[in-house]
C-alpha cells in the first residue's frame, strides 16, 4: 500500500499556495495533516498529479476571539482547538464533540480545515460547524469569498470550493452564555466512524426554547440540520412531551442509509434516541432540567 508518483511542492506562503492552485487547479490536492489524504494515496484510491503541502503555513494557524465571532485558521490542528480555553468558553459543543473525533494521535496533526474539506459523511465537525452557523472563508488567486455552512457542505466528500480555492478560515458566531448544547455519538468502538452522530444547540429565554438547532451525521446523504425537529420545539417550553415530539419528527425526517455496520432502521431508531437524550442534556445545561 504505497502511494503513486506525484509532484510535490511546499509553498512558503499562502500567496504562493494560491498561485500554485490557480496554475494546477483540478490536478493538484492540498496536503494538510495528511490523515485523510495519505491513507487514500496508500490505497491508490486517488492519483493526484501534484500535492501542495500547506501544513506549515503558520499564518493559517490561529484562534481569534472577536466581539461577535470566533475566527479559526483552517490549518489549526484539532488538538489545539480542543485545548483552547477560548473554544471551551464559547463553543463547548466543539470540545464535547472532539471526544469522538478520530483519536489523539490523529488530532495532533489533523486540521479543522482538512476535516471540513474532506467532508466524509461520518465526520463530526461538518455537523458541528453547521449547527454553530459557521461561515467558511475561501480564498483564491482571484480573491476571497465567504460561504455559509449549508452551501459549503455540498455532498458527501464534496464542498463548494472551486478547484483553485482554498479554505483559509472558519468563522463561528459567538454563542450566548448559558446556552444549552450537546453532542452524542453512537459507534461500535469509541473513536470509530459514527453509526449515527447527533448535536443540538439551544437557548432558553423566559422558559421557552429559542434558536434551536438539531442535526445528525450519517443519517442520510447530506443531512445536517433537521428543520422539522427544530420546529417541533422552537418557542415552546422545555418538557418531556416537547422532546418526544422532536424525536419523532427527527426520525420521520431523516433518510438514513444501510451499510455493513448498521441498517437504516437502526439509524432511524438511534437518531430518535439521541434526540431525546441530547435535548434533555442541552436543556439541563441551559438551566432548565426536564422532568418525566
Amino acid at each position, binding site marked *: *500500500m*504505497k*502511494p*503513486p*508518483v*506525484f*509532484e*510535490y511542492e*511546499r509553498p512558503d506562503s499562502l500567496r504562493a499556495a494560491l498561485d500554485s492552485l490557480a496554475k494546477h487547479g483540478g490536478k493538484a490536492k492540498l*496536503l494538510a495533516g*495528511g*490523515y485523510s489524504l*495519505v*491513507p487514500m*494515496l*496508500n*490505497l491508490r484510491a486517488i492519483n493526484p498529479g501534484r*500535492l501542495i*503541502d500547506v*501544513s506549515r503555513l503558520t499564518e493559517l494557524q490561529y484562534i481569534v476571539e472577536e466581539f461577535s465571532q470566533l475566527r479559526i485558521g483552517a490549518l489549526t490542528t484539532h488538538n489545539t482547538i480542543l485545548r483552547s480555553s477560548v473554544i471551551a468558553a464559547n463553543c463547548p459543543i466543539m470540545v464535547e464533540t472532539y471526544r469522538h473525533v478520530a*483519536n*489523539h*494521535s*490523529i488530532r*495532533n*496533526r489533523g486540521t479543522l480545515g482538512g476535516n471540513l474539506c474532506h467532508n466524509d459523511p461520518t465526520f463530526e465537525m461538518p455537523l458541528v460547524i453547521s449547527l454553530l452557523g459557521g461561515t467558511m472563508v475561501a480564498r483564491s488567486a482571484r480573491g476571497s469569498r465567504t460561504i455559509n455552512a449549508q452551501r459549503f457542505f455540498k455532498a458527501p466528500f464534496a464542498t463548494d470550493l472551486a478547484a483553485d480555492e482554498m479554505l483559509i478560515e472558519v468563522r463561528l458566531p459567538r454563542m450566548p452564555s448559558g446556552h444549552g448544547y450537546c453532542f452524542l455519538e453512537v459507534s461500535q468502538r*469509541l*473513536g470509530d466512524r459514527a453509526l449515527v452522530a447527533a448535536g443540538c444547540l439551544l437557548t432558553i429565554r423566559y422558559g421557552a426554547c429559542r434558536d434551536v438547532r438539531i442535526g445528525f451525521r450519517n443519517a442520510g446523504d447530506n443531512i445536517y440540520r433537521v428543520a422539522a425537529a427544530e420546529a417541533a420545539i422552537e418557542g415552546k417550553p422545555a418538557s418531556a412531551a416537547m422532546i418526544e415530539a422532536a424525536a419523532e419528527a427527527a426520525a420521520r425526517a431523516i433518510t438514513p442509509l444501510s451499510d455493513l455496520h448498521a441498517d437504516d432502521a437502526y439509524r432511524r431508531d438511534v437518531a430518535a434516541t439521541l434526540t431525546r437524550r441530547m435535548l434533555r442534556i442541552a436543556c439541563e445545561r441551559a438551566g432548565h432540567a426536564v422532568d418525566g
Partner: protein
Amino acid sequence: MDTLQINVTVNGRAYQRRIEPRLLLSDFIRHEIGLTGTHIGCENGVCGACTVLLDGLATRACCMLAVQADGRRIETVESLGRANNLNPLQRAFWEMHGLQCGYCTPGMLMLMTELLRENPNPDRETIRLRLNDNICRCTGYEDIVNSVQRAIELMRGETAVR
C-alpha cells in the same frame, strides 16, 4: 522521477537524504535511516504501530510523507534506551508484562512517552483513554495500562527497580 533533499533530525542525530516525495515517513525511518524498531501494521492510520514523535507529538508515520519531516525532529523507540539499559518506561513494561509479541510495542512506548511528558501523573482512566489510540492484539491492554502506572512510580523514584 523527481527527488528532493531533506534534512531531518532523528533521535538527536542530523541526516540529509535525497528521496522521492512519495516515500512514506515509516519507510524512510525503517529503510533510509535503518531504524527498524518502528513497525508497520496497516498503512491506513488505524493501528498505531508506526507511532513516532514528531517535534514531540505522537504521529502515525505511515500517514505522513517523509518530505513533510524536512527540518523536523523525530524520535523513535530507539531513542528511549538500549536492551541492556532500558529507560523507566521500558523497564516498567518489562516488569508488568506489557508486551507479548513485541510488534505494537514501539508504537505504545512512543504514545505513552508523549503522555508522560505532558502529564507525569495521569490516572488510570486518562491512561486508558490515550491508550485507546493504538491496537494491541496480544495483551488485552490491561498489562500495558499497568505498565504505564508502574512507569510513573519508577520515574518518581518511589520504588526500587524489580
